[in-house]
């Protein structure tokens, strides 16, 4: 028996090998000849738009034969994970959709390749993209034509509300009786607080609901990305517009103090208990489970919320971040796509960016659930009607402001996280003390960074 088995071995082997060879050949034959075996790794956060990008990327693979591999990391560890990767000159990512605030560090530390020559060669003009996204995602130094990324995912903070609750006649009547005006999406933060107070603790459909959901997360960037929406509207500035890095009297101005006090008051009066360390996902959970009347969150999540079977469709409405006493602004989110300087596949990665910048691809990106920054897409006549949140998105992108994008942004951000969380959530000190401390912290960081911080 043994002998016969040994004898039949070559026949089996040759048959199997032929089969595999045939399969491999046919697989290769179906790929474009130029891209056989090529692969690009794209790094980004794990969230709804990332799924849309995977879908979109299939077209790139079909067109070029280059396989796309994705490394998506949850937001809470996104910065840690990828900044570590970039800092250590790793080769994990060929393309990275990095946060807007990374651009300074990425440029100064040469983590990304500069794209000016590539843009010129491929006739990609930054004038074709929304100005706020070019400034926020691509330029370093700011307001100079030095580009390190292509605007990829436009985003800003916006609000959702329970349209179905707002439209109930009994609720409408009670609100009008109490405040003397119709219950409608708020135009100012004062109106927002009134609506939030009105809904706080109310019983709707036999369930206790709460007024508003706002960002309070401590660990990464949450509370800063929330509080700035109020601070900007109340007159907060990062520094003196005429004297860079002069922060005294701007970061801690009386107006900024009032803004911070307002955010704390909103947190204390009108949010659900237990949301002392909550960011995007907790907001989505609170809204989807019917706990809150209004929710602060990024526009990136709005397509998913609109599709939600329980709270989406006719039940959900959207509004722009309300105005404050000193104007109306909103926090910029979103990211640009860059080529990692240590990548061994820079040409293919640039090819991806060239493909991604095409108007037809940008249009499909928007249709799949991503947010295009290309003017040809967002300024098209049909855009405002293409999604229920599209008009608010356009309006928001015209009033965005962003956090520092300095190389030391992480230190600046964590200092603000600490000072604001200590005051708003942990009731430590006053708003004035919190912002005064923040000026001290930031001054120290800029001095370490070698910036000429002006005497206060």
């Amino acid at each position, binding site marked *: 028996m043994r002998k016969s088995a040994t004898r039949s071995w070559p026949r089996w082997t040759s048959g199997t090998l032929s089969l595999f060879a045939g399969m491999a050949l046919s697989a290769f034959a179906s790929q474009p000849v130029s891209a056989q075996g090529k692969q690009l790794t794209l790094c980004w956060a794990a969230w709804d738009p990332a799924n849309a990008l995977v879908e979109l990327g299939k077209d790139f693979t079909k067109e070029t034969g280059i396989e796309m591999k994705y490394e998506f990391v949850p937001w809470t560890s996104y910065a840690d994970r990828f900044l*570590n990767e970039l800092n250590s000159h790793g080769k994990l990512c060929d393309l990275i959709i990095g946060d807007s605030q990374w651009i300074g560090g990425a440029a100064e*530390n040469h983590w990304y390749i500069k794209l000016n020559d590539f843009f010129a060669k491929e006739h990609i003009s930054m004038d074709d993209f929304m100005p706020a996204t070019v400034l926020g995602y691509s330029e370093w130094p700011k307001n100079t034509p030095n580009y390190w990324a292509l605007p990829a995912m436009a985003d800003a903070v916006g609000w959702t509300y329970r349209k179905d609750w707002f439209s109930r006649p009994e609720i409408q009547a009670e609100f009008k009786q109490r405040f003397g005006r119709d219950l409608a999406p708020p135009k100012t933060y004062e109106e927002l607080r009134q609506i939030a107070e009105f809904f706080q603790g109310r019983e709707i459909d036999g369930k206790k609901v709460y007024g508003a959901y706002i960002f309070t997360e401590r660990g990464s960037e949450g509370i800063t990305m929330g509080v700035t929406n109020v601070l900007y509207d109340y007159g907060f500035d990062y520094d003196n517009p005429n004297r860079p890095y002069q922060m005294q009297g701007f970061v801690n101005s009386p107006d900024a103090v009032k803004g911070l006090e307002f955010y704390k008051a909103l947190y204390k009066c009108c949010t*659900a*208990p237990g*949301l002392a360390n909550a960011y995007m996902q907790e907001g989505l959970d609170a809204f989807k489970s019917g706990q809150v009347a209004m929710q602060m969150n990024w526009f990136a999540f709005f397509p998913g919320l609109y599709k939600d079977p329980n709270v989406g469709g006719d039940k959900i409405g959207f509004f722009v971040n309300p105005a404050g006493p000193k104007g109306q602004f909103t926090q910029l989110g979103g990211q640009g796509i860059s080529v990692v300087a240590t990548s061994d596949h820079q040409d293919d990665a640039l090819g991806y960016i060239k493909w991604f910048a095409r108007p037809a691809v940008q249009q499909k990106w928007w249709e799949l659930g991503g947010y295009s920054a290309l003017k040809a897409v967002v300024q098209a006549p049909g855009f405002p009607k293409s999604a229920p949140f599209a008009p608010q998105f356009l309006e928001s992108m015209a009033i965005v402001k962003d956090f520092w994008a300095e190389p030391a942004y*992480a230190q600046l951000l964590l200092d603000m996280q600490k000072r604001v*969380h200590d005051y708003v959530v*942990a009731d430590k000190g006053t708003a004035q003390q919190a912002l005064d401390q923040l000026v001290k912290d930031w001054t120290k960081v800029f001095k370490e960074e070698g910036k000429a911080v002006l005497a206060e």
Partner: protein
Amino acid sequence: MTALIHPDAPVNRIGAQTPFRVEKQVRGLSDRSIAWMFITPTIVLLLAINIFPLLWMIRLSFTNLNLSMSYLPLRFVGLDNYRDILTDDDVWNRLQLTAEFVISSVALQVILGFGLALLINRQFRTHSFWTTVILLPMMLSPAVVGNFWTLLFQPQIGPFNYLVGLFTGIVPSSFSMTGEVALAPWTIVLVDTWMWMPYVMLICLAGLRSIPDYIYEAAEVDRASSWRQFCSITLPMVMPFLMLAVLFRAIENFKMFDMVNLLTSGGPGSTTELVSITLKRAAFEKWRTGYSSALAIILFVTIFGAANIYVKALNRVKQR
């Protein structure tokens, strides 16, 4: 007497199979050389992954290295990082908070763990089953523990708040164990105690089982009361075990990171920001490598020094 080892013994059989050249080479080596051959890989590994990084970290602690600004020239800053840390009120607050956490959680674990060990030691019918049940929490990963206690503490749907409400009449959603300044520090103590009390119990149980029965029998003959037996026999004889448990738990809790990070992220504000979380933020979020290296050295020296003093005390207790 000459044939102490039988010719068919395994060692001889293996020796017979050793190739001649290898045998010749090994025969030429002294016992000391062979010993070195065995321990060299371990020493190299230890040097590579333990000693070298430690020395490198000491070097970095005297520099201004910040990985988010690696384009800046690396400068030797002497003791500046150490001075910054030791004169920073925030760092002292974090150290104080860590000390409070260590003391309260270890004290609770020792009291409850020892109490449980006394109960389990009574050898009742289902004591093996209960020992296993009590040991379950310490077999879980801290990440799992952090996540599921976060759910248990959820004010609207968490069973913990519901139970508190049931027994006290407080509205369950009116308080948040992880979100309130007054409750959050106790929350981390509570969860840590739940997880590690069984460990202390296990060590104490080993101590209790090591006490010979005849000592208690002699005490019975002398008509010593149960309390007297506990104070004069049980406690002194279990003390070295208890002290060992305190040492292990104190060192572990001083380094506590994962569970607290998942439960509160150091919040609300900085209410539960233990020094390990401060260190992680400085090193891997702010990228202040020089500064965080100095902080790590300070913590290492603190733990090492305290542990040394404690071990000396432990030895004195054992000698008694």
